[in-house]
C-alpha cells in the first residue's frame, strides 16, 4: 500500500489532478518535493490545511503519513 494524496477544491485545478499515490512514509518535505512548484507554494501558505487519516493537523509540518493513510490538501473554504 501507499499514501493517497487528495487535492481538494481549487487545488485540484492547480495540480491538474484530484489525487496522487506516493510511497510511504511521507513527511512534509517529501510532500513538497512530490508536487509541482505551484502546488508546493500554495500548500506552504498558512491558510492551507492538511488532514491525515481524517484529522486536520494543527501543524502541517509534522506530517508523518504511513501506509494506507489518506492525506488531504485543504485550501481555505469558500465564502458566501
Amino acid at each position, binding site marked *: 500500500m501507499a499514501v493517497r494524496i487528495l487535492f481538494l*477544491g481549487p487545488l485540484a485545478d492547480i495540480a491538474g489532478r484530484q489525487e496522487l499515490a506516493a510511497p510511504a512514509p511521507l513527511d512534509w518535505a517529501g510532500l513538497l518535493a512530490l508536487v509541482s512548484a505551484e502546488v508546493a507554494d500554495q500548500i506552504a501558505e498558512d491558510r492551507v490545511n492538511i*488532514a491525515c487519516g*481524517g484529522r486536520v493537523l494543527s501543524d502541517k509540518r509534522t506530517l508523518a503519513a504511513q501506509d494506507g493513510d489518506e492525506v488531504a490538501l*485543504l485550501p481555505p473554504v*469558500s465564502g458566501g
Partner: protein
Amino acid sequence: MKSRFCRRSAADSCMALRDVRLVAEPFDSAELVERAFSEVPDTGGVCTFTGKVRGSGGVEALELTHYEPLTLPGMHDLADAAFTRFDLLGLLMVHRIGQMVPGDDIVCVSAAAMHRRDAIDAADFCMDHLKSAAWFWKREKRSDGWHWIEPVPSDHASLARWK
C-alpha cells in the same frame, strides 16, 4: 437520519431532537423543519436560516465539493457545541452537496427552543461556524465556465462575535 441527543441539563426530559445530514438532491427546507419539529413539545420559538443559490451575476449552476471524512463529523461537532452553548429543544442542520441551480436551497439550520434568544442565537452561531466546522469549496458556472469562489475575510469578524 434522525437521532436523539441526551442533554445533561434538561429539566424534565433528556430527549432533544437532532437531525444533521448532507444531501445530494434538492430539498425543501420548510418541509424538513415542519417534519423535524412538529413533535417537539414546549417549543416557544423556532429560528430557521435557509441559504439559497443566487441567480445574480449570470450564475447558471453552483457546485459544492466537500471532503467527506471531515464534513459530517465537523457538522456533528458543531451541533454538540450548539447544544452545549444554548438551551435547545431541537436542532436541524442540513447541507446540500454537489451541483445545484439558482433558487435551490444550499443549507438549512433550524433551532427550536423554549426561548427566542436561544433559538435565534443557535441558528446564527451554527451558520457562522458551519464553514470552519465543515469543509466546503464552492464554484460557480457562468457563461464562460466554472469559477471558484474565494474565501471571504469578513467571515472572521462574524466568528469573533462568539469568542
